[in-house]
């Protein structure tokens, strides 16, 4: 159940950042980036199917639990190899590693429930439906030239 993002909905308010920091004791795992004046986009863990961070982790602290890339704080030595193995730069180390845990123990990730623009969702169907209807709308209008 990873979090899907619809960038065209993101309004750059950074509410997700704040919510994530609040839930994770000050160290958040989601960063809103601003690309020129054209877009804002939250960057966070993709929970990759074959996650490089789990390959690099030598103690098994980072491991797959179903779709989730889970983290066992007890096993982490803070070596930082996971941080260097992540192609998206979304694993941090500060003595020990920290990354998105999809808000384990909560009903839904707090970034998703907080986003006022509904840009974040855990619902794959919704993400795919939105993309399809956007494509259909563009096709019906003959596309923008």
């Amino acid at each position: 159940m990873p979090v899907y993002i619809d960038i065209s909905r993101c309004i750059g308010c950074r509410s997700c950042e704040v919510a994530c920091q609040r839930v994770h004791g000050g160290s958040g795992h989601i960063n809103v980036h601003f690309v020129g004046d054209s877009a804002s986009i939250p960057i966070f863990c993709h929970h990759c199917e074959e996650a490089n961070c789990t390959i690099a982790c030598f103690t098994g602290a980072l491991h797959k639990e179903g779709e989730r890339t889970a983290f066992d704080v007890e096993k982490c030595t803070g070596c930082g190899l996971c941080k260097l193995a992540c192609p998206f730069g979304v694993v941090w180390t500060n003595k020990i590693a920290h990354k998105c845990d999809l808000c384990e123990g909560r009903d839904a990730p707090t970034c998703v429930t907080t986003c006022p623009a509904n840009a974040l969702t855990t619902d794959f169907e919704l993400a795919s439906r939105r993309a399809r209807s956007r494509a259909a709308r563009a096709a019906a209008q003959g596309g923008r030239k």
Partner: protein
Amino acid sequence: MIKVDASLCLGCLSCSNVCPSQNIVRTETAGKRSVHWKRCKEECDLCVEFCPAKALTLVPFDETVPEPDVSFDLVACKICGSRYATEPMLRRIESALPANVQKDSEGLEWIRVCPVCRRNIEAERATKQMVLGRSRKSP
């Protein structure tokens, strides 16, 4: 007492993190990271157990042996130039990951790019895709 094989050490600071008695000292300046192992008498092998490179071994205490020291020049990010990792750590990542994931779709060797720039690249790419989708122009 700890014996260090400097040729194996990655400079990852795992040992320093797990040492319960602060016997492994790290110093980090802008471009350099040094690790210094004090002569310790503890009967503890946490650092040996948690060394990813198996560079450490326990040897009997000997006052005449100098305290080991290893230092690394930190590697500069290919894009922004910030010093972000030691060379042996990057080499280890390069040998651990399958070759086909070490270059991204645009041929960038992302392992040599710092995590901050990796996030920026991801943001720029996603934006490009969105703008493309909105304008419906073929790439």
